[in-house]
């Protein structure tokens, strides 16, 4: 009940070096160590170097296993509790149909979380369904995806305070960073 806020970075699907060379420069400028307390990575980072880079950004880093993550022993799903919020993390390639709200809702109920973070579609979104929330940080590098034609590099920062959460969607549009704010509230 101490009401200190916590910042969480939601990021994933970098696919470096398979589908992208690197993160956009403007994103690299923003993502410096010490700004957030937690990182939830949906997976498919691509190489060890960027795995380590993510681990250097914050004290608590959680990974989920993506379909291109080989040789890395991380779980397929993970439940993280931050303050009053229970957050579920999964890559999303396991959830069929890919990106479907109801299928994700099944996963959310199985994990019993208030907020489910998933990726794979490379399409960033924030949705609420049945009182629970679903966030997809998209692809941080704008990597190619067979599902989406126009992929914009994106990631999320979520500020959790008590039962409220404020989401900031950082997207690279025409070479510039745009930030969109939203609010979520935990239902009991």
């Amino acid at each position, binding site marked *: 009940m101490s*009401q*200190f806020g916590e910042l969480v970075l939601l990021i994933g699907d970098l696919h470096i070096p398979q589908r992208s060379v690197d993160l956009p420069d403007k994103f690299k400028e*923003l993502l410096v160590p010490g700004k957030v307390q937690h990182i939830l990575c949906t997976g498919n980072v691509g190489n060890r170097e960027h795995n380590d880079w993510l681990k250097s950004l914050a004290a608590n880093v959680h990974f989920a296993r993506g379909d291109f993550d080989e040789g890395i022993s991380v779980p397929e799903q993970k439940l993280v509790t931050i303050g009053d919020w229970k957050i579920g993390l999964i890559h999303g390639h396991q959830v069929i149909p890919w990106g479907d709200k109801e299928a994700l809702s099944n996963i959310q109920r199985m994990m019993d979380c208030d907020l489910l973070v998933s990726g794979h579609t490379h399409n960033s979104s924030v949705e609420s369904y049945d009182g629970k929330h679903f966030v997809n940080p998209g692809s941080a590098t704008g990597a190619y995806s067979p599902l989406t034609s126009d992929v914009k590099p994106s990631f999320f920062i979520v500020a959790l305070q008590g039962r409220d959460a404020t989401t900031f969607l950082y997207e690279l549009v025409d070479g510039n960073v745009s930030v969109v704010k939203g609010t979520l509230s935990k239902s009991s």
Partner: protein
Amino acid sequence: MAEELVPNDFLVSPELFEEYFFRQDSHANIQQLANEGKLGTLKNRFISWRIFLGILPYPGPLDVWINHLTELREKYQKMIDEQRKVKIDHLDPLIFNPLSQVSDNPWNNFHEDNELKQKIRLDVERTFQERPLFLLNEVQEMMVSILFTWAKGNPEISYKQGMNELLGILMFVGYAEIPENLSRISKKASEVLNVLNSREYLEADIYWCFARLMDLGISELFNPVVTHQSMQRKKPDLFTWNAEKMHNDLVNQDKSQEQNVSSILRRCHKVHHQLLQSIDRELFNHLEAKKTEPQMYLQRWLRCMLSREFNLADTLELWDAIFANYYAESEKELSFLDFLCIAMIVFVREFCKRYLVLQSDQSGILRRLLKYPPVEDVNILVGMALKYKTKNITPVKIVTKQEVSNLSSSPLFGQKKNLGADKTPPRMFGTSQGSSGWNNNLAGSIDEAISVIRDIANEKVYNENKVNRAMEVINRIKSFIEKDVSPKTVDPLSRK
């Protein structure tokens, strides 16, 4: 084997609460109990301390207490909400988002706050590590929260190491006295006790105790700020023989009145140069000779209010006395703490003195003072401190030769023997009482010698020891009068 969180001795007693605080007919004299070291037997320390600190007005009808507490609790909640919410509602997220480096980004405060919180957390985790109570997450979170709130509310001093120790003691008392088993007292009384010592508002209650404690001069002790005097000070004249002698007369200069030193230094010097010098001159001279700087041991004693020098039970007893005397005198500061420090030094005086003969270094003395020996019953120290307080010690001023010759011509000194202004060494005078302070001590010594002799006469037994001591006293007094040297304010019955 699970060690209990709070030993039984420290738990609250609902029955005693009902008897002495709830019922309006019988009142315990908590001040006296505290001075005698018996406040622990009342088993309602949290309430007693809040009375002493002025948070609960005594004897006060209980609904006044409850209203006052409710007010304070709401105030605390408001403070927290204000301090911790990041105000971003009407700001453009493109510029004012958590990652942006813009200078007046409210998220910057968020990051600074986090650093402060980390710093506090490190210290909190090390507080009272040996007690399982302080390993509880709940307790640690509360402590971090309280210290953070205070630091944000007092940005000039912010958080400093040592505050966690003070808070630890308060936390222990507060947490221990959350009422558990209320079956044996009346329903009304148990309702009131649940409100006064409520678990839900424990954080707010302890915050206000802590804030009050800090207001009583303790926060100043953590303030490193040194106020500089604007005008140039006259440099001490070191080029004449007399001036150098004056400069070397006191190895450590008394800085208790100076402006350009920190508050903690000033207080350490006050305790040492003024209080100790007038209470126990011999010991003071000895420590000066050994070049023992007072702040080396007094700093921790004062800042942590002796909580690092004694075990928990003794610390609680000492704090009882400190708060009780603050309440009794209605002063603005916890001055009893100073007297307790003097009592502690005098208590180990024999140990300090021994080093004069055997070893000529100060490290032995410091080692003794920094690792204070366990005391059988800390009430001895409280008794000694009370005695010093009642003697009404006035600050001692060093008088120069010129001032002596000025004074000796004044009417105040007319009655005394005429002092030759050319051959008098610098003297010590009580500034407010003039020569009568000197006379008072003399009178005191004579009184005690007379009482010794009367005792012997009454016993009608030839007790050689006592007679010898009485003779010693009388001889010493005789020599004071003959040699005309300022007398030491020494207890005539103490052994040399």
